[in-house]
């Protein structure tokens, strides 16, 4: 669901000069591997068939993100936005170049990826919080806030498989925004839940910005990013084609 543009708060981010993320000449090649088993591998070796087609998901990407900045990553499908985010979070490793970070990172690459349907909401909050890097003390301290934010108090001990998809996303998002890292990686999650909840999420993002958190946000909601970000990077076929003012960036993407 697209957030109501009037609800999107203006950016509260205060950029500083302290670099938090350094992406240095990062390239990542993906192979579309067809061969999944040894048998197929042996046969393709015998037939001298080409093993896999490859493409450059990231091509010599250079990017520095400073503390307090909210950087948007935009581009069409397959332009390498998510790959870049995954490379920064440490899920993927660059083939060439390197990524360096300062401070603790939490990647919200996909809301609810760490959730298990057979566990209760409470158990999932703990498991997912720990996966996102929270300690037991932090979790116990913030548990009530997390549940209150998600507004599903009465179902917290129900197994997650009985949740509606909206409830599920609310809880997952709530855990994620309470992890309180120095660097926040956000992939297409600002479109969860109903309108009031979305408003709340955006409000929370604004709070994090005001608190000086660094954010890298991937989204297709161009208007929203334009308001939320201090800087936008446009990617096309794994290359950075624009890096700078949000309004210009959106124009660049629309023109291409």
């Amino acid at each position: 669901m697209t957030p109501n543009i009037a609800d999107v708060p203006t950016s509260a981010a205060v950029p500083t000069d302290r670099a938090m993320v350094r992406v240095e000449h990062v390239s990542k090649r993906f192979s579309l591997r067809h061969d999944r088993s040894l048998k197929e591998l042996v046969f393709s070796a015998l037939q001298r068939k080409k093993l896999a087609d490859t493409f450059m998901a990231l091509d010599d990407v250079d990017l520095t993100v400073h503390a307090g900045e909210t950087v948007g990553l935009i581009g069409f499908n397959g332009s390498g936005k998510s790959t870049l985010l995954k490379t920064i979070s440490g899920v993927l490793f660059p083939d060439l170049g390197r990524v360096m970070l300062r401070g603790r990172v939490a990647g919200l690459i996909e809301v609810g990826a760490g959730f298990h349907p057979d566990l209760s909401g409470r158990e999932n909050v703990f498991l997912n919080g720990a996966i996102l890097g929270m300690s037991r003390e932090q979790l116990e301290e913030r548990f009530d806030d997390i549940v209150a934010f998600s507004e599903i108090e009465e179902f917290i001990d129900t197994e997650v498989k009985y949740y509606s998809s909206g409830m599920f996303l609310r809880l997952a998002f709530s855990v994620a925004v309470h992890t309180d890292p120095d660097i926040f990686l956000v992939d297409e999650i600002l479109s969860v839940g109903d309108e009031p909840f979305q408003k709340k999420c955006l409000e929370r993002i604004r709070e994090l910005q005001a608190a000086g958190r660094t954010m890298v946000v991937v989204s297709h909601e161009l208007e929203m990013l334009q308001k939320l970000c201090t800087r936008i990077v446009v990617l096309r076929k794994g290359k950075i084609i624009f890096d700078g003012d949000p309004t210009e960036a959106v124009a660049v993407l629309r023109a291409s």
Partner: protein
Amino acid sequence: MTATAPARRTPSAAERAEGWKAPGQDAGWLNPLKERFLLRLLVKKELRVRYRGSVLGMVWSYVKPAVQFLVFYIAMGVFLELNKGTPAYAVYLFSGIVVVNLFGEVFGNATRSITGNGALVAKIYIPSQLFPWASMMVALVHFLPQLLVLVVGAVLNGWLPSPTAAVAFLLGMLILLVFTMGLGMLTAALNAAFRDVENFVDLIVMVATWLSPVLYRIDMVQKSLDGTILWWIYQLNPLTIVVQLFHIAFWRYSKPVVDELATDHPFAYTLAQPGEPYGLWWAGLLIAVAVFVIGTIVFERSKRRFAQEL
């Protein structure tokens, strides 16, 4: 795909001093010790998921070995008359079965731990060592009831705990866990690339019961293989060493065995184990550590490709 030298990937000393680090740069094989809280939650999750929708739940971890034991006891002990030459054959048999079961479960679960948690591995960064370690701890939880049954059975057969038994048991557990975790990390890493590996592992687990002295006694193997290289290979199998240690711990010093050895029965001497009491424990430990090191290295080298391969 050209690989850059690792030195270029990680921050230099000067950069580290400024607080820079590479994403996914973690404590490697020490992670399970550092991330104990997360590890515990993962174990809890595994246990919960394992018995979802099952009425008997944990009871299954008693039922399965019990049935397995009965079948082997009837087929090997009664039909093939192995219990005639072996006093307290039931204890002998069960102390081997628990070893092979633990081996099978740790090995099998660890092999599937990366592919089984694919959704997580591909999306969120977690130190991936935690997955095989969580599998091992789940297997240990299932091992405890079996151990309890074994101890009760041994006591009923005139066994009393002793320092020798305790040392043999602890040595056996140490060798078994280090060895199996080494193998498990190796196969977990390979299984992420080729799913064939898990079937191969099932095969090894199936064969393991028969290639270590679980059902028969080791002197029977010596009788047919003595003097050949195969006899040495058989003895150096870490599982053989661990099963023997378990026999020492729970069977060898129980009353029926000691009594039988004291008689002048012509074959009574065969009940004594080679190299009593701890046999080739040092060789077992050495092999186990070597396998663990190899497993860790392979795992560490391939873990950065997991997210791509799943």
